């Protein structure tokens, strides 16, 4: 089966610009998660979708971050406007029921 796919793999933008990250989960996985790792620190939870519904978005840093999951398939994470502290690696992961997460390779975001 195809794994979790994230696009782009790298993105470099200037402060104040907008960036949209995309995640395609494993087919059939209802649960989709976004995590972020900043500057080699811990991997932090951002939010959790079950199908198209946001189950938990308690980890979203602020209202500059907007996540969507159209039709319960792929998901996007938009940062608008981007700030320097948003730099990091954004991981998407999916799972079925309570099975362990399958992570994508991440999008490395650099805000200059």
């Amino acid at each position: 089966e195809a794994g979790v796919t994230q696009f782009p793999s790298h993105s470099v933008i200037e402060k104040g610009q907008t960036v949209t990250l995309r995640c395609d989960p494993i087919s059939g996985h209802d649960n989709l998660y976004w995590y972020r790792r900043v500057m080699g620190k811990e991997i932090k939870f951002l939010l959790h979708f079950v199908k198209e519904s946001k189950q938990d978005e308690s980890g979203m840093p602020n209202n500059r971050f907007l996540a969507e999951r159209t039709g319960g398939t792929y998901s996007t994470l938009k940062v608008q406007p981007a700030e320097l502290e948003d730099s990091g690696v954004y991981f998407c992961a999916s799972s079925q029921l309570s099975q362990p997460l399958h992570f994508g390779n991440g999008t490395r975001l650099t805000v200059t």
Partner: protein
Amino acid sequence: DQQVKQNSPSLSVQEGRISILNCDYTNSMFDYFLWYKKYPAEGPTFLISISSIKDKNEDGRFTVFLNKSAKHLSLHIVPSQPGDSAVYFCAATPYGGATNKLIFGTGTLLAVQP
């Protein structure tokens, strides 16, 4: 305030020897623990997990030990192989594994020397 701590940023071990990676946690509500392995430029991959009702779980060369009274868990890899060289993340959740909202540590870089 980090609830899951991996105090050793790195560890170097000779091939064939045992690797022991440690993890401490502060939240007594955590009841399910996992280890993930991460290679450069890749996402973490699930390695092994343990429920708080157990104190040991084994899968091939990998064994996880849980000491609830000390709020400590460790991952043992024996024998270590060069392909085990990666960053290892400890993670925990208070939801019994029913959800994958995980609290991760900062990771330990394991280098297995041939």
